[in-house]
C-alpha cells in the first residue's frame, strides 16, 4: 500500500480550498448579476448603484465602519456554526445575545474592579447569561425531545418579553427623571478601549480570538471531533460511545456563550449600558446567513462577516443618493441563497471526482 507523497497531499488540500473559494466567489458574482437585473427592472442603474457601493465602501472611513459592523456578525456566526457542526440549529442567537446584553450591562454596574478585570467580568457574565438562555433549549431537547429549531425560535420571543419586563421593572435607570431608557452606565473601568478613537473598539480583537479558538476546538480537539462525528453520523457516534445528550448540551452551551458576546461591542464599547433602542437587533439572524456563507469555517466566517459588514456600511450613503438602501439586504440574501446552491452542487461534483480519482489511483496500484 503506497501512500502519496506529502507534497501531493498538500496539493490536494490546496486544490480543495481553491475549489471552495472559487465557487464562493463565482456565487457572489452571480448574485450581483441577479441583483443588477432586479435594479434594472425597478428602473435603477445597476452600474451606478454598484459604483456607489464601491466608492463609498472603499473610502478609509467606511473600511473602519466595515470592521465595526463585522464584529458582532463574527460572534453571531461562530455561535451558529458550532451548532451547525453537529446538525444542531441554534436559531435562538437573537434572544440569547439580547438577554446576555441586559444581564451583563446591569451586572457590570454592580461591581467595582480594576480595568482589565472589570471588562473580563462583564464578558464572562455575558457568556454565562447567553449560555444559560441557550441551555433551556438543550434541556428541552434532551428531556422532552423538543426540536431545537422550534424551541430556540420560540425562546427568542420569550427572551424579548422577559428582557422588557426585567428592564422596565428592575434595571431601568430612573435617575434622569424617567427620560433615560437605558440601564445605569458602566463605569469607565468596565469600558473596552478603542482601537481607533470612536470608530472601532477592541471587541474586534476578541472576535478574532474567538474564531481562532473555535477553529482549534472544532478541528483539533477531542471534543471537537466528537462534536463533528455527532453531526456527520449521529448513530455511528452514539454506537462508538459518544454520549449524544451531553454533546447537545455542551454544544448548545458553547453556542449560547459565544452568542452572549454579540452585543458586547455596543454594551462595553459604545453605549456603556443596555437600552431597548440603543442595542441593535437582528444580528442573530444575520449570523445564520454569515455562517452559511462562510461554510462554518473560521476563515469563511470572517470573510463573510467582512463582506456583510462592507455592504451594510454603504447602505446609508446609498439612501442619500436615491438608491434604495434595502438593495443591500437583497444582495446579502441572494448571495447566501446562491452560495448555498453553488456549494451543494460543487461539493457533489467534488465528491464524484474524488471517488473517480480514488478508483483510478487504485487501478494504477493494481497494475503495478
Amino acid at each position, binding site marked *: *500500500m503506497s501512500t502519496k507523497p506529502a507534497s501531493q497531499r498538500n496539493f490536494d488540500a490546496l486544490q480543495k480550498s481553491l475549489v471552495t473559494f472559487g465557487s464562493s466567489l463565482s456565487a457572489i458574482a452571480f448574485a450581483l448579476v441577479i441583483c443588477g437585473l432586479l435594479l434594472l427592472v425597478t428602473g435603477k442603474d445597476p452600474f451606478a448603484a454598484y459604483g456607489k457601493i464601491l466608492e463609498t465602501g472603499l473610502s478609509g472611513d467606511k473600511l473602519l465602519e466595515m470592521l465595526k459592523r463585522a464584529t458582532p456578525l463574527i460572534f453571531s456566526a461562530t455561535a451558529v456554526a458550532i451548532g451547525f457542526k453537529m446538525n444542531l440549529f441554534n436559531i435562538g442567537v437573537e434572544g440569547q445575545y439580547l438577554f446576555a446584553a441586559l444581564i451583563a450591562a446591569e451586572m457590570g454596574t454592580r461591581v467595582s474592579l480594576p480595568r482589565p478585570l472589570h471588562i473580563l467580568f462583564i464578558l464572562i457574565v455575558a457568556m454565562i447569561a447567553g449560555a444559560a438562555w441557550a441551555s433551556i433549549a438543550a434541556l428541552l431537547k434532551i428531556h422532552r425531545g423538543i426540536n431545537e429549531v422550534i424551541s430556540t425560535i420560540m425562546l427568542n420571543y420569550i427572551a424579548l418579553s422577559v428582557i422588557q419586563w426585567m428592564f422596565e421593572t428592575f434595571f431601568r435607570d430612573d435617575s434622569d427623571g424617567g427620560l433615560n431608557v437605558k440601564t445605569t452606565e458602566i463605569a469607565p473601568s468596565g469600558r473596552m478601549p478603542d482601537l481607533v478613537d470612536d470608530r472601532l473598539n477592541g471587541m474586534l480583537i476578541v472576535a478574532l480570538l474567538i474564531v481562532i479558538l473555535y477553529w482549534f476546538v472544532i478541528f483539533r480537539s*477531542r*471534543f471537537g471531533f466528537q462534536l463533528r462525528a455527532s453531526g*456527520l*453520523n449521529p448513530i455511528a457516534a452514539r454506537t462508538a*460511545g459518544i454520549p449524544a445528550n451531553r454533546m447537545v448540551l455542551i454544544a448548545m452551551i458553547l453556542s449560547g456563550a459565544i452568542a452572549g458576546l454579540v452585543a458586547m461591542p455596543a454594551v462595553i464599547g459604545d453605549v456603556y449600558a443596555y437600552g431597548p433602542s440603543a442595542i441593535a437587533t437582528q444580528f442573530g439572524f444575520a449570523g445564520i446567513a454569515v455562517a452559511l456563507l462562510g461554510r462554518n469555517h473560521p476563515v469563511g466566517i470572517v470573510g463573510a462577516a467582512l463582506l456583510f459588514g462592507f455592504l451594510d456600511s454603504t447602505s446609508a450613503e446609498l439612501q442619500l443618493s436615491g438608491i434604495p438602501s434595502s438593495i443591500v439586504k437583497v444582495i446579502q440574501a441572494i448571495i447566501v441563497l446562491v452560495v448555498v446552491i453553488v456549494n451543494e452542487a460543487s461539493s457533489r461534483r467534488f465528491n464524484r471526482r474524488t*471517488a473517480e480519482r480514488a*478508483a483510478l489511483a487504485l487501478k494504477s496500484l493494481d497494475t503495478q
Partner: protein
Amino acid sequence: MQAGSAKSSQTLSAESANIVELKNISKSFPGVIANRDISLQVARATIHAIVGENGAGKSTLMKILYGLHQPDSGTISVNGYVTQFKSPSEAIAAGVGMVHQHFMLADNLTVLENIILGSEPTKIGVLSLGDARKQVKEIATSIGVEIDLDLPISELGVGQRQRVEILKVLFRGAEILVLDEPTAVLVPQEVDELFTNLRKLVATGTTIIFISHKLDEVLAVSDEITVIRQGSTVATVLPKSVDRLKLAEMMVGSDLPSHGKRTTKVGATIQLAAHNLTVLGKDNKNPVQNVSFNVAEGEIVGIAGVDGNGQFELCEALLGLVASQGTIEISGTDVSKLSIRERLKKGLAYIPFDRQREGLMLGASLWENSLLGHEQQLSRGPMIDLAAAKNSCREIIERFGVTTPNELVPAFVLSGGNQQKLVVGRNLATAPKILIAAHPTRGIDVGAQAAVWEEIRRSRDAGMSVLLVSADLEEVLGLSDRILVMFDGEIAAELDPKSATPQILGKYMTGTR
C-alpha cells in the same frame, strides 16, 4: 398494464415467450460493482426465484427492473418490448409491481384505503369506494386471500400486512410481481399460506419473481431458479435438477474458504455474561425475552437466527444502546447500569450490523473514521494527536488489507468490503477483551471475508471472547465453538458446531423444532 402504455417501448424483441428479459445488465456504484453483465429470462406465468448471498446483487437487479436504478449498460424487455424505466411509476404502468421487504403501509388507514392509496378510483372526481371494494374483493378471492377490508392496518399481523402489499400491487394491474425476501419476516405457517396464494396467483397468469436466500423455500416453490454470485449470474436451473447442497455451492462458489480446525483451547474465565436479559418491546411482544448465556476467554459463541428474531436488539442491549432488564456482566462486574462509553472502556468492542448506518462517517476521511471510538487513546491532553491518529489508520489499512490510495480519502470512495475491513480493523486494532460481531462479513467478497475471519480467529487465539451474530450458516458453523439459535426473541437451542448441520440449524431458526 398494457405493454403499449409504457412510453419508451419501441422495438419488438425477437423472443417474446419470456415476459421479462434482462440482457447484459451492469450497474456500478462508486467504488463497487453491484451488477456485472447479468442476464435473466423469466417465462410467463411462472415463479422464478433469484437466489444469492447477501450483497450478491439481487436487490440491485430488481431495483433496476422496477425503475429505482438505471443500468449503466444492458437492456430490459418486458412483454417483448425493450424498455427503460426512469421511475417506478413507469414500471408500474408497464405491469411491473414490487413488494418491498419493509412494508410501506399507513397504519391508521384501513386495508381497503391502503390498497387504493395512490390510485384511487373516482367518478367525476369523487372517490368511489364501492367499485374499489368490489375489485379488491375479486382479486383477493382469486388468489385465496381472506381479509377484512375495513380493519385498520395497525390491527393486522405481519403475514396479513404482506398480503395487503401484494393486493395493493395487483390492484394497480401488475402482471409481474417482484417479491423481495418475502419470507424473511414470516413464521413457517405464514410462509406456507403465502406460497399457496402465490401458486393461485400464477394460475391466473401472473408472473412472480421471488428473491430469497433460503434454499429450501426456493426449491419448494419456484419453477426456475437463477443463482447470482458477486454481481453476476452463475446459472439458471430447474429445481428438479438440483438439491440444496448443489444450490449452496453455486451460491457461495467453490472457492469457499475452508475453516481451519482451531489449535488453541477455550479459556476458563467468563468474560461476557448475560442473565435473564429482556428488552421490552413497544407492544406486547418483547424483542429479546429472558436470554442468558456466557462467553469464555478465547471462545467464539455464534448466535444464529433469521434476521429480526431479536439479535439486533440483543446486541444493542449488550452495548447499552437500548434499555434492558436483567444483568450484563463483563469479567464478572455488572455493567448493566453503565453508559456505552464505560462499557467500551471495560474492553467491549462492537462491529455493528449496518456498517454505513452505525459504523462510518461516509463524508469524513478514513483516519477520522478509524479514530471514532478511540479518541481517548489517540489524544494528547484535550487535543487529538493527529500524527498518532493517522498512523493508527495506516496500520489498520496495512494489517487488514484495506484497498485505498491513502488514509486521507473520504470513506465513501471505498467499496463495501473495504469499508467493512476498516470497521473490523478499527475494533480489533486495540485488542479488545470482548468483541460483539454482527454480520462481520455481510455483503463483502469472498477474499475480504476470509481476511476478516482470519483476523477474528487470530484475536480469539490471543484470548478475545467473541459473540458472533450471523445469518450466514457457513460462517456460524465454521467459526463458532458453541452455537446458540435465536428464534422469536428467545434462545431456542444450544448446539455443538461439530455435530450441527445447516439443516438442523435451519429448523431451530424457523421454530419448526
